[in-house]
């Protein structure tokens, strides 16, 4: 075991300098520092340009979260939101990527995209979950680098950078114009309008519209715009015309356009177009305003031009060849007298006359001058059947007084005019009804009714039934009567009367045949039927009167010569025949046929009134002409008929006067005969009326 040795001497060299002593490890913190600094610098450099957007409000904008998007790519974030110094608006500060910020022009548009539901659809749905974002739209300008912008309150309809043409539409009111309403061309949506705004004058509305490329090349000076929104109902000579646009257009309104004539030239941006109320007026607007070589003419009218107005059409053989430009009055001095004449300026499109589109005015005027020589005249005409509106019609009137196109140096040529024959349709229709009402037909019927009533009274008279009571007196009278020679001759006369009545009935039946020819007059003929039936019944009844009288005569003779029992027997026979008369079908049928006739008469009148509707009148006019001829023919027999009736009644009266009695039977028979005579008179009147003017039945004149 040895003593512990002292520790070895530790010998150290001279202390190395601090720098020589440095370990390589020190590279690590410096590398970390370098990397950290680099990252810091990079994020500093990449944080983008700070811009400021002024919004009215910043609903939904959240600092650090709300993105700024350009073409749906995020290009930055909102940093902070603050008020402007006057608290009137909100300043949104955002960092925009430098690549984008450098190209931001001062008119770049920013708006907050929010979920939006409108008639045209739903937009911004994604922002429901992710929150709003700010959309930017601009046309990049390298080196612009603006940093302060005005934000929009709502999504702009036309974003900068879209290709197309911006135009301006001018309308009288903005009722049907809503922002974003589509513009259609041939049913395809090719653009949209922006928010309408009032003109400074307040008299009208203008609205900016944007037509997308490439359809914007359809817009030329020949383009016309019209409103297609809502329903459009037109009632015209061609019937009812209902046009409805698309449902979206129904809700939002819509505008359509079309090129209405050829040869338009391209329009510059912000060209102003008029917006027309409907397609027809848009197309009509083309006349004269767009034609360089339209010929202006003047027409002078003596008559009222009520219903004519600027824009009224000028037609030639039904074809629109121009329009009325202006109306005015002037004083003309004719032979020392001052007369007011009305003057219409019209404009004629040479193309509509078949002349070459670029025909010089002189050529058109020469053409018209020649036409005037051949009888071309201007006159007023109604635009439609029921329309009060007038138009100027150029018509060729063969027998017109010779005239020439008045060509003066200073004014437009004057085309001679003729008086128009404007049919007052309404008045005519009314007059037709009135005259139908005024026809003696009703009088005739009244007379017939009265006659029938008398006959009925006669037949139903109690005195006739209780004849036996009054018979003693009658027999007394009859005795005296029959004793006379006149009574002896009566039977023959009665027979003659009856045969004549039969002839009347025959005539009436013939008239009936004629009546059946025309459908319109069918009811009238039915009435005639009834009249003839009445006449038949009457003649039948009359036919039995002689029997009755002969029975009477026989009875009276027997009463004179025979015993009471024989008298009673004869009286019974007389009563039987009287009963027969009363019970006869004809007599019974009288009230029935009367009411039947009345019904038919009523139906005939109703049909006439209903038939007054212009359409069916037109439809029947042709056959009515034939019917008129037939009526005339029938009417010719009417006087003969009435003469016969009159003669018959006279004879009957004469015959009955022979009885000389005051019995009610006689009185009523006489009254009945008087009615028959009145009926005959009415028939004559009708016959005369028809004879004078066969058309009166149809046209009331």
């Amino acid at each position, binding site marked *: 075991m040895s003593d512990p040795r002292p520790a070895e001497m530790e010998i150290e060299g001279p202390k190395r300098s601090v720098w020589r002593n440095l370990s390589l490890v020190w590279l690590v913190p410096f590398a*970390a520092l370098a990397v950290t600094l680099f990252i810091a610098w990079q994020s500093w450099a990449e944080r983008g340009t700070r811009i400021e957007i002024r919004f009215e409000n910043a609903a939904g904008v959240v600092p650090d979260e709300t993105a700024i998007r350009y073409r749906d790519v995020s290009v930055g974030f909102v940093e902070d939101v603050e008020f402007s110094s006057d608290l009137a608006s909100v300043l949104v500060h955002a960092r925009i990527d430098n690549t984008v910020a450098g190209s931001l022009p001062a008119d770049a548009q920013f708006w907050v995209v929010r979920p939006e539901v409108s008639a045209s659809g739903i937009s911004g749905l994604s922002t429901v979950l992710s929150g709003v974002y700010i959309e930017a739209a601009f046309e990049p300008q390298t080196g612009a680098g603006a940093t302060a912008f005005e934000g929009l309150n709502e999504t702009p309809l036309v974003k900068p950078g879209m290709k197309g043409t911006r135009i301006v539409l001018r309308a009288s009111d903005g009722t049907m114009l809503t922002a974003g309403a589509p513009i259609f061309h041939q049913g395809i949506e090719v653009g949209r309008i922006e928010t309408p705004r009032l003109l400074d004058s307040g008299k009208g509305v203008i609205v900016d519209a944007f037509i997308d490329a490439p359809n914007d090349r359809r817009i030329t000076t020949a383009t016309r715009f019209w409103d297609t929104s809502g329903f459009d109902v037109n009632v015209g000579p061609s019937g009812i015309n209902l046009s409805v646009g698309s449902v979206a257009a129904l809700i939002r309104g819509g505008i359509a356009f079309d090129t209405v004539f050829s040869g338009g030239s391209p329009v510059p941006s912000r060209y102003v177009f008029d917006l027309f109320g409907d397609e027809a007026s848009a197309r009509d607007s083309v006349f004269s305003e767009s034609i360089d070589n339209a010929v202006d003419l003047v027409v002078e009218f003596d008559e009222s031009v009520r219903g004519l107005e600027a824009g009224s059409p000028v037609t030639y053989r039904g074809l629109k060849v121009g329009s009325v430009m202006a109306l005015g009055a002037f004083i003309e001095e004719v032979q020392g007298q001052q007369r007011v004449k009305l003057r219409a300026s019209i404009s004629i499109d040479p193309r509509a006359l078949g002349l070459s589109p670029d025909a010089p005015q002189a050529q058109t005027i020469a053409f018209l001058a020649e036409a005037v020589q051949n009888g071309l005249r201007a006159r007023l005409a109604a635009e439609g059947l029921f329309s009060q509106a007038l138009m100027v019609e150029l018509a060729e009137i063969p027998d017109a007084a010779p005239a020439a196109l008045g060509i003066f140096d200073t004014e437009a040529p004057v085309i001679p005019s003729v008086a128009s024959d404007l049919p007052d349709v309404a008045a005519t229709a009314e007059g037709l009804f009135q005259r139908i009402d005024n026809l003696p037909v009703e009088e005739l019927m009244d007379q017939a009714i009265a006659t029938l009533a008398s006959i009925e009274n006669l037949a139903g008279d109690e005195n006739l039934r209780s004849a036996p009571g009054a018979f003693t007196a009658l027999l007394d009278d009859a005795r005296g009567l029959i004793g006379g020679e006149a009574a002896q001759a009566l039977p023959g006369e009665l027979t003659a009367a009856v045969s004549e009545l039969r002839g009347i009935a025959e005539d009436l039946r013939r008239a009936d045949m004629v009546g059946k020819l025309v459908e319109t007059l069918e009811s009238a003929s039915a009435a005639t039927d009834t009249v003839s039936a009445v006449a038949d019944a009457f003649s039948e009844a009359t036919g039995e009167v002689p029997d009755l009288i002969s029975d009477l005569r026989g009875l009276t003779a027997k009463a004179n010569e025979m015993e009471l029992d024989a008298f009673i027997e004869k009286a019974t026979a007389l009563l039987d025949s009287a009963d027969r008369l009363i019970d006869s079908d004809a007599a019974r049928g009288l009230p029935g046929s009367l009411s039947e006739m009345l019904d038919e008469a009523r139906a005939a009148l109703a049909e006439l009134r209903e038939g007054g509707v212009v359409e069916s009148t037109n439809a029947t006019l042709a056959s009515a002409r034939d019917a008129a001829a037939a009526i005339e023919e029938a009417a010719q027999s009417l006087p003969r008929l009435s003469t016969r009736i009159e003669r018959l009644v006279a004879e009957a009266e004469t015959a009955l006067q022979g009885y000389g009695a005051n019995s009610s039977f006689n009185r009523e028979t006489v009254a009945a005969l008087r009615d028959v005579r009145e009926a005959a008179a009415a028939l004559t009147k009708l016959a005369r009326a028809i004879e004078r003017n066969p058309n009166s039945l149809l046209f009331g004149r």
Partner: protein
Amino acid sequence: MENAGSAPRVLTAKAAGLVGCTQCGRVHAPGVALCSRCGAAISSRDGTSVQRVWAWLFAGLVVYIPANLYPMLRTTLLGKTTDSTIFGGVVDLIHHGSYGVATIVFVASIVIPVSKFIAIAYLALSVERKVSLSAHRRHVLYEVVEFIGRWSMIDVFVVAILSSLVQLDFAAQINPGIAAVSFALSVAFTMVSAQSFDSRLIWDADGE
């Protein structure tokens, strides 16, 4: 033993004229380059230790700054993207009432790393200067720092797990931010820093 009652004076290997192996603890005669037991390079004292400690510590500090300034997590929920830094995450958790989790995150991500920086700096300083804390306590401190350093990685693990699990496209998506990398580096650097410290230096000062 005559001086058994007094605190025993620690006899270091160096003081005994020997060289101890830092890996297995065997002592060797001076001049031996490699440990005869475990083969580790042995030296009496590592002259560059303190220098390396400072270097790694400094690197850890440098990357700890962006780790706190940049977002740790980038959460995309229904198209809405939220960035959260470490401290911002703690504040959010407190707002949501998750005090426990907030405490864990706060301790693991802020308290421990900061404490580590301070502790390592203190130990490194204590080698060259006289400090009041005894060598025994400083050694305990060193042990604690070395043990607890790895647990700071818990935050990085959370981010890594969340990022890989929550990838539900539009509904929810979580991505690590740049701070996650920084923080991981910071933790790694401080761990290396602690490893670089030659704990025997604590006793050298004590022995004088």
